[in-house]
Every structure is written in C-alpha cells, then in structure tokens.
C-alpha cells in the first residue's frame, strides 16, 4: 500500500522535516531544530502538530444514537453537553482496549477522534455495533492540526477570534477564510492548547498563519516525549487489546454511574477488576541514573524476580532525565518502590513514581 501524505506535506518539506512512515502516512518525526529543542519550544512557547493522520469520525443521529453509544462507551453521554468532550476507549467484550479516543457532542451527533493506526478497524467495529443505523463518516477531507503550549491561546486567538473563551475539553465551530473549522481546547502534551479540524484545502494556509504569529512546527518525536512526560498513554504501547482501562490506571475516565448500571461492553470485567483488583497495573518509573529504559525492558524487584515490563521510555527534556511507563505486578506498584531495569544485560536501579512526570504549574517560567 502506498503511503499517504497529509495536506501539510509540502509545508513539512519546506521546513526541512525528516519523515518517517507512521500508520501508513509519511509523517514528520522532527525538523531542523531537533526533538529536544522542539519539545522545549512547545513547553515554553507554542508548537504546531500535524495530526491529520488521526481519524475524524462524525456520527449523526439523535436520541437513539446516544442510547446506542452508551452501550459501547463507559460515559454519561446523555449528560454530555453540546460541544463538550470526554476521553474514552473502545473496548472488546473482555474490556480489552481496541483504541483510546476523544468523543465530542456536536449538533445532531458526535465527533470521535481516533488513533491513525486504529481508525479503519474502529470504523468497522462501530458500524457493526451500531448495525449501520446511523450516518458515519470517517472524514478524509478534513485535516487536524494541534497547537500546544502557553503562547498558543494568544497565537490562535490572533488568527481566529474568540477561541480564548473556550474552556478545557470544550469546542465550537469558528470561521477561517469563511469556512467552518471545529476547534476544541484539548491536546496530548500536558500543555494548554487546541485541536483544529479544518478542510484540507485550507490546512496549509491556516498553519502558515500560525507560523507567521510565532508558533513552530513540531514533529512526532517531540510529541512522544511531551506525552510521556505528561504521563499520557499511547496506543500500541501502554494500551492494547490485552489491557483493560483498570489495568491501564484509567478508571478516572469511566463514569461511576455507568459502572453502577453495568450495561456497556466489557462492564462485567471492569466491575470485577474494580472489586477484586488487577494483577498488573500501569505505573510511572524513574531510573536513578541517566540510563534510558525503552519499550520491552524487563523490570525486576529487589529479590531479582521479574515483575513487569516497560511500555514507553525515553529522555524527558523538561524533567532533564530519563522517564518511563510500564506495567508491574500490583504489589510493586506503590510510589517509591525500588525496582531494577535490565538494559544491555545490566540491572539499573529505578523507582516507581506518580504521574505525570511533568506538571505545568510547578515549573512555570523555569526553563
């Protein structure tokens, strides 16, 4: 299959992007500044991310649709107000995670943002679960652009008036060049920011405007270090069909009311796990030295027993040290538990820690 290009491909090239194939797309991994500078620029100023490879699924329908979606997602969708967003997941019957997603209530339906690698399969699964009753469009005619970091609100508001009034996890339709764009105040970097759904024809022009105002393009490399510092899960790493939201430590995203009713796909497993606990759970891990423990690194306890594995690990430019997430046996998941990470045949000390690694309010103005 030929790799696809997003509408910003030319712009990436103009900015000396290094490309990598990701989920069937040619995506920029970094630009000339490099991952560390791009990461810091996002934390201190404003970074632009082309996330057009992600799925934008529009589902239209009224009351029936809300009821049917509640059988799928563990959310109070009936109470979700117009233009409000929630983080959730698509699960199988065993509460294994097919994908994590953001669902937003829009006029006459919902907009669901899906991971690039999962979007086609998600579409099939959802079509089947909804018995093809509703109009569903995985919209390839729109690009998705994120702008993240403390200066983003000022920059975006200069281009599209009024976005500054959006609250976190809410959205609305705005106009750019007399065309409708849907903007939510959200993102995946641990920073204040926005995601903008814009027609492909206008994506390049819109993004160049943001650059004119001082924002910079940021590649997938820094997107990964930013989300990891923020303690956020990445599908295919922390999340998979073999992990449940309880194991992934995402129970905050499951509605308590829906658990008490227990009427969504996978709810019996979730309820059981909430009551009796899970064997392994996702944790944050900080190596004591500078050693980087990457995905699949084995984790041992003080008695040298194998207790888990790293799912993501890198160097965190803002915490200025190595950071990792992984799954360990529940009894070793407490904060400050000492563990050992096997890297290139040697065991290196590390500590279980709380997430996120990086919190905005603590380090404002430090870098």
């Amino acid at each position, binding site marked *: 299959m030929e790799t696809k290009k997003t509408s910003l491909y030319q712009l990436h090239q103009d900015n000396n992007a290094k490309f990598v194939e990701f989920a069937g797309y040619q995506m920029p991994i970094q630009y000339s500044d490099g991952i560390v500078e791009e990461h810091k620029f996002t934390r201190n100023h404003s970074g632009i991310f082309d996330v057009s490879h992600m799925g934008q699924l529009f589902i239209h329908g009224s009351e029936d649709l809300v009821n049917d979606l509640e059988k799928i997602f563990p959310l109070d969708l009936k109470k979700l107000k117009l233009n409000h967003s929630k983080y959730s997941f698509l699960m199988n019957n065993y509460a294994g995670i097919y994908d994590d997603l953001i669902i937003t209530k829009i006029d006459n339906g919902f907009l669901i943002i899906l991971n690039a690698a999962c979007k086609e399969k998600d579409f099939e699964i959802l079509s089947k679960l909804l018995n093809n009753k509703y109009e569903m469009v995985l919209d390839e005619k729109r690009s998705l652009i994120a702008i993240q970091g403390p200066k983003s609100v000022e920059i975006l508001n200069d281009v599209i008036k009024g976005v500054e009034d959006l609250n976190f996890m809410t959205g609305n339709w705005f106009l750019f060049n007399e065309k409708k764009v849907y903007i939510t105040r959200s993102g995946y970097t641990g920073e204040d920011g926005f995601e903008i759904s814009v027609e492909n024809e206008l994506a390049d022009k819109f993004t160049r405007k943001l650059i004119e105002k001082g924002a910079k393009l940021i590649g997938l*490399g820094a997107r990964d*270090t930013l989300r990891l510092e923020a303690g956020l899960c990445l599908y295919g790493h922390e999340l998979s069909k073999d992990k449940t939201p309880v194991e992934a430590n995402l129970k905050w995203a499951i509605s308590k009311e829906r658990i008490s009713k227990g009427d969504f796909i996978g709810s019996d497993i979730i309820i059981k796990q909430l009551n009796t606990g899970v064997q392994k759970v996702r944790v944050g891990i900080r190596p004591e030295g500078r050693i*980087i423990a*990457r995905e699949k690194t084995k984790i041992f306890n003080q008695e040298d027993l194998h207790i888990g594995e790293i799912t993501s690990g890198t160097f965190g430019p803002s915490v200025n040290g190595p950071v990792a997430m992984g799954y360990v046996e529940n009894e070793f998941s407490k904060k400050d538990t000492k563990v050992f990470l096997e890297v*290139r045949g040697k065991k290196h000390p590390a500590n279980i820690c709380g997430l996120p690694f990086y919190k905005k309010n603590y380090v404002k103005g430090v870098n």
Partner: protein
Amino acid sequence: MSEVKYSKEHEWIKLEGDTATIGITKHATEMLGDIVFTELPEKGSNVDKDGTAGVVESTKAASDVYTPVSGEVVDTNQAIVDDPSKINEDPENTAWFFKLKIKDKSEMDSLMNKDEYDKFAKESS
C-alpha cells in the same frame, strides 16, 4: 604528525604515536539526532577491532559505538557522560569518546581517509 581516519560505522580515529583518540562523526550525530545518554568502555579494559565499545542514545533510539582498532582503553571522556549534548555540539573535537593504546598500527590501513569517508557518508545517508 597525526592522521585522522574514518570507519564505516561512522567513528573517527586520530593517531598520535601509539595513542588513538576515537569519537563519532558529525554525520553520525546528524543521523542520531539529540544525544541524551552515553556509555563508555572502562578504563583499563581491552577492546577489539569492530567490537562494541560504548553506546549513545538519542531521544529516538540506542546505537552501539564500535572501535575501529584494537587496544587498551587508557582514557575516557567523562564530560560527554555528564552532558551528552556536547557530542552534538562538537563531535569531532572536544567530544571524543575514548583513547586507546593501540596494538597493531596496520589496523588503520583499512580505514577511510576524509575524502573517502565524506563520499561514503553521502552515499549511505
């Protein structure tokens, strides 16, 4: 007089008497991206030609560092362990990796000179 030669694994080697200083090339740092971790061989240990003698990690991945010649490690550059970003800044000079007392000068013969390496690097990127 000293001569600088280059390996296909993108190391440079500068020979002065029987002491060789070894590091990675600018081209290598450009391919790796921001280097955030370095591991060097132990002083006093012996390394064999084309064997691993260290590790560099960028934000993206880990890569082995090979030694282009055999010898005993007589010095290592602690500065690049403390601050690996120095490797990106000055790879072919102050950010050297380790020094070897070499055993067999003829191992240098198969290595590339600057022109040959530049051509090789251009073709392999």
